[in-house]
């Protein structure tokens, strides 16, 4: 009887355990990271009595969580990538919006600016039209700055979110360290098996970190878990957690580096390349591959526009007859640190070769390397006498860079932010060309000069800007129907001086250069007359009071549709107009945004699938728990009945004895 009572009691206890666990499952059905728990049970050791084994009831051996490591890993991997795409998308889609907006995009401002230039070209004496050109140029500059500022603000947002992500990582790391400690204790007291609920909590902390950055974890024999970021940078070791932060040191892109601080206070920088995946990986990637290229592209556009425009503007003269000044102001290439003695300047004649890349320039015992920071490759720099040229950039003062030292070169990164308009007086717009050609009425032949075009104004301006050029005449000699051009004193013909009307009659271009350096080309057509007493002449004079001359304005206007950018190879011809280059930037950011959004959707679906697979093992089903409640309530009642029977048998026995 006592054994029946005991058997009933074990059943009652087991049912109680089941009911408790069911209740626990129901209570935690919505708890993040909770895995449903099961009671494990076995029969108790039998008793040998009277030649047979009799059962002695049941025993509860433990409570285990439904946990499948493979399914858990799948969820973690998918969620890590989803978080990475989500962070990337959150910021790149903002840039995407900014670039295309009709109110903030570059195309409308470019069109207005060049439209105003066309008006100046059509009516060069109209002061209002010239003023409109200056106003639209200010609008254009403001648009460049606004775009740059917006991208900077979005980058600041990235930085803020990085700090927030690090705070969360640090919090979760501390939680893991503490849970490690408690799990070690619970494993000892639990006979080698730790509490499912503590394990759930630690796994949930890992899942939270995993959303922020990709981590790997290694279980230790004592039950604790070591967590590593990237390729082996420890974040949690046993009960010690390290802290991530943004330090003061700058990396090669000029940004503050991430630091890992140990409990003893020592800090070491973490290379950006080690961190990937998760929110933090996505933020670093969008800053590296989204914001910075966009900002550099804008800077490249600003540099190309301003340099090409200034170059052509300098070849003209303004309403006062003075050579054109710079129209736009540019901040120029930046060298960090600025005290290195190295200077870098954009070559106005090679704007098309500019790439918009940032570089690290290094001197190793006279061996110079110029590394493109984005690709990490040495582009090869031929240095002579401390000077070198590469991709539209002129380097000088290289010999002041000590061996083992390096500088960072940012050629266009800050150009959009620092772009300005130099001219505020409408009379200073150089719409005219400095030289006019004329054919004296005394000429007997039909020779005509058209399309006169300055290629250099070197040595042509006096200190006050007015023209330092005298009139000169070009004569001819003839031999057998072929004419030789005879330049006036102080001038030489560059690249050919013969003219054969029979074959060149439609027009041949010649280049005339003054000893001071200034040079212009012109197209000669018709047939000059040469006789015994002399020849026809063509007079070239400084353009004086030529206020209605629009030749330089027309050439400036042509810059809208001229290909100025993205030269094919070193020194190759340009392949894109300014607007093409902007459209390319918009398409690039748009495509990237699209790709990231697709990635986020795909990974989101994968997370859903993996989570469903995991939850089908580990999740709580309330219907199932309800059924269990009924089931274990009944088994509890049955076990109670067994005990009641034992009680009654005992009463019967007492009654017999009475």
């Amino acid at each position: 009887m006592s054994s029946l009572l005991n058997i009933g009691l074990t059943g009652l206890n087991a049912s109680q355990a089941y009911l408790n666990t069911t209740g626990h499952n129901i209570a935690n059905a919505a708890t993040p990271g909770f895995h449903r728990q099961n009671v494990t049970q076995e029969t108790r050791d039998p008793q040998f009595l009277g030649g047979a084994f009799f059962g002695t009831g049941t025993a509860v051996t433990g409570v285990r969580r439904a946990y499948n490591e493979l399914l858990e890993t799948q969820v973690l991997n998918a969620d890590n990538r989803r978080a990475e795409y989500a962070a990337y998308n959150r910021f790149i889609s903002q840039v995407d919006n900014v670039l295309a907006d009709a109110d903030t995009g570059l195309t409308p401002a470019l069109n207005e600016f060049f439209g105003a230039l066309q008006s100046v070209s059509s009516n060069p004496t109209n002061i209002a039209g010239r003023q409109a050109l200056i106003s639209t140029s200010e609008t254009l500059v403001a648009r460049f700055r606004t775009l740059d500022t917006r991208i900077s603000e979005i980058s600041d947002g990235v930085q803020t979110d990085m700090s927030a992500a690090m705070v969360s990582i640090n919090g979760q790391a501390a939680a893991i360290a503490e849970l490690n400690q408690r799990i070690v204790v619970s494993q000892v007291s639990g006979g080698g098996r730790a509490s499912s609920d503590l394990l759930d909590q630690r796994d949930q902390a890992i899942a939270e970190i995993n959303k922020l950055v990709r981590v790997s974890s290694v279980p230790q024999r004592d039950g604790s878990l070591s967590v590593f970021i990237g390729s082996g940078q420890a974040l949690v070791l046993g009960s010690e957690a390290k802290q991530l932060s943004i330090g003061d040191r700058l990396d090669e892109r000029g940004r503050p580096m991430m630091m890992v601080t140990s409990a003893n206070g020592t800090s070491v920088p973490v290379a950006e390349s080690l961190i990937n995946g998760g929110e933090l990986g996505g933020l670093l990637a969008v800053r590296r591959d989204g914001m910075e290229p966009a900002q550099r592209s804008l800077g490249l556009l600003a540099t190309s526009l301003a340099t090409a425009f200034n170059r052509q503007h300098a070849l003209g003269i303004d309403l006062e007859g003075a050579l054109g000044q710079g129209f736009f102001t540019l901040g120029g290439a930046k060298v960090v640190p600025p005290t290195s003695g190295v200077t870098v300047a954009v070559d106005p004649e090679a704007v098309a070769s500019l790439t918009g890349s940032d570089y690290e320039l290094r001197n190793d015992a006279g061996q110079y390397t110029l590394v493109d920071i984005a690709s990490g490759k040495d582009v090869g720099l031929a240095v002579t006498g401390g000077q070198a040229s590469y991709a539209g950039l002129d380097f000088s003062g290289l010999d002041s860079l000590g061996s083992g030292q390096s500088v960072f070169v940012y050629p266009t990164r800050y150009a959009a932010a620092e772009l300005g308009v130099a001219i505020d007086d409408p009379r200073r717009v150089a719409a005219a060309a400095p030289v006019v050609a004329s054919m004296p009425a005394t000429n007997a032949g039909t020779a005509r000069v058209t399309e006169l075009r300055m290629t250099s104004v070197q040595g042509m301006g006096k200190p006050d800007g007015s023209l330092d050029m005298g009139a000169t005449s070009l004569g001819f000699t003839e031999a057998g129907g072929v004419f030789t051009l005879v330049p006036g004193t102080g001038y030489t013909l560059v690249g050919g001086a013969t003219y054969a009307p029979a074959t060149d009659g439609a027009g041949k271009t010649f280049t005339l250069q003054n000893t001071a350096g200034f040079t212009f080309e012109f197209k000669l057509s018709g047939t000059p007359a040469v006789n015994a007493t002399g020849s026809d002449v063509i007079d070239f004079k400084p353009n004086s009071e030529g206020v209605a001359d629009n030749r330089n304005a027309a050439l400036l206007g042509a810059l809208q549709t001229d290909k100025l950018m993205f030269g094919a190879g070193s020194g190759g011809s340009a392949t894109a107009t300014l607007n093409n280059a902007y459209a390319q930037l918009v398409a690039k950011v748009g495509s990237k945004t699209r790709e990231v959004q697709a990635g986020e959707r795909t990974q989101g679906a994968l997370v859903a699938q993996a989570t469903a697979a995991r939850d089908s093992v580990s999740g709580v089903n309330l219907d199932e728990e309800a059924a269990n409640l009924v089931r274990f309530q009944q088994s509890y009642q049955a076990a109670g009945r067994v005990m009641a029977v034992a009680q009654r048998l005992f009463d019967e026995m007492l009654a017999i004895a009475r």
Partner: protein
Amino acid sequence: MRVSTNMIYDQGVRALQTQSAALLHTGQQIATGRKILTPSDDPVASARALDVTQSSSVNKQFITNQGYAEDALKLVEGQLDGAGEIIQYARERVLAAGNPALSPSDRRSIATDLRGQFDAMLAIANTRDANGDHLFAGYKSNDPPFRAALAADAVSARAEYDGDQGTRTMQVSSSRFMPVSFGGETVFGSKDDGVFEVLGDFITALEQGTNVSAAVGTALEGLDKSLDRVITTRAQIGSQRVEVEQLGLIGSDLDLQYASTLSDLQDLDYNEAISRLTQQRTFLEAAQQSFLKTTGLSLFNYLN
């Protein structure tokens, strides 16, 4: 497969969110009338739209310039008509002066008339446009190009040319810079055989009354040459005006084409969008119903 209660809720919520997002996107498209809301919706079309926008803007500028060019050419044409009439009239007066029966006073009165024609011609040569620019001054448009002067004999009237040989142009198409001004010497001739010299010399001859018949011959020859120059320039302007008109037609054709290309790239097909909206609404409502029905089921409803 074993199903957990969370899975039922998660899946339901996810379905609702997907459908809502699609509905919102279509709603935005309908509200803005654009099928591309951000470049990421169609990066290639967005980039192309920017290029087409610039082409369209450049084309519009050319159409504006064609208008400027047309105005400028019309103005020059009108002045040349005036110059042509003066030369014709002067020619008649020269012929009349050649009549041997005329008295010296008759000749002097013709000379006075011709002096008036000389001044009228000078006024035309120094015409200004609406900007205040002198039409026949080349690039030096600020100052009057022709200045009344005297010949070496200190008697005969002359006009000195102070302008230059510059030709103002306007860009009326991507490759055409159209001349819209003509240097004074092209229209009125240079110092040796210009219309002013012809008139000036003839007036002197009439006033002095010597060798009139020889002077008549010289003057007629000179005036014919002058008329030729005016007519040649006039013909050039006529053909340029035809060209501008044709360019204008091409320009407005292009404008239409660009507008239609931009519309194809960016604009929404409302029929398609509204039918899509209806479809998405149906899907969302179905998802809502299905969510309510599924989550409403629980064994606990039957336990008491």
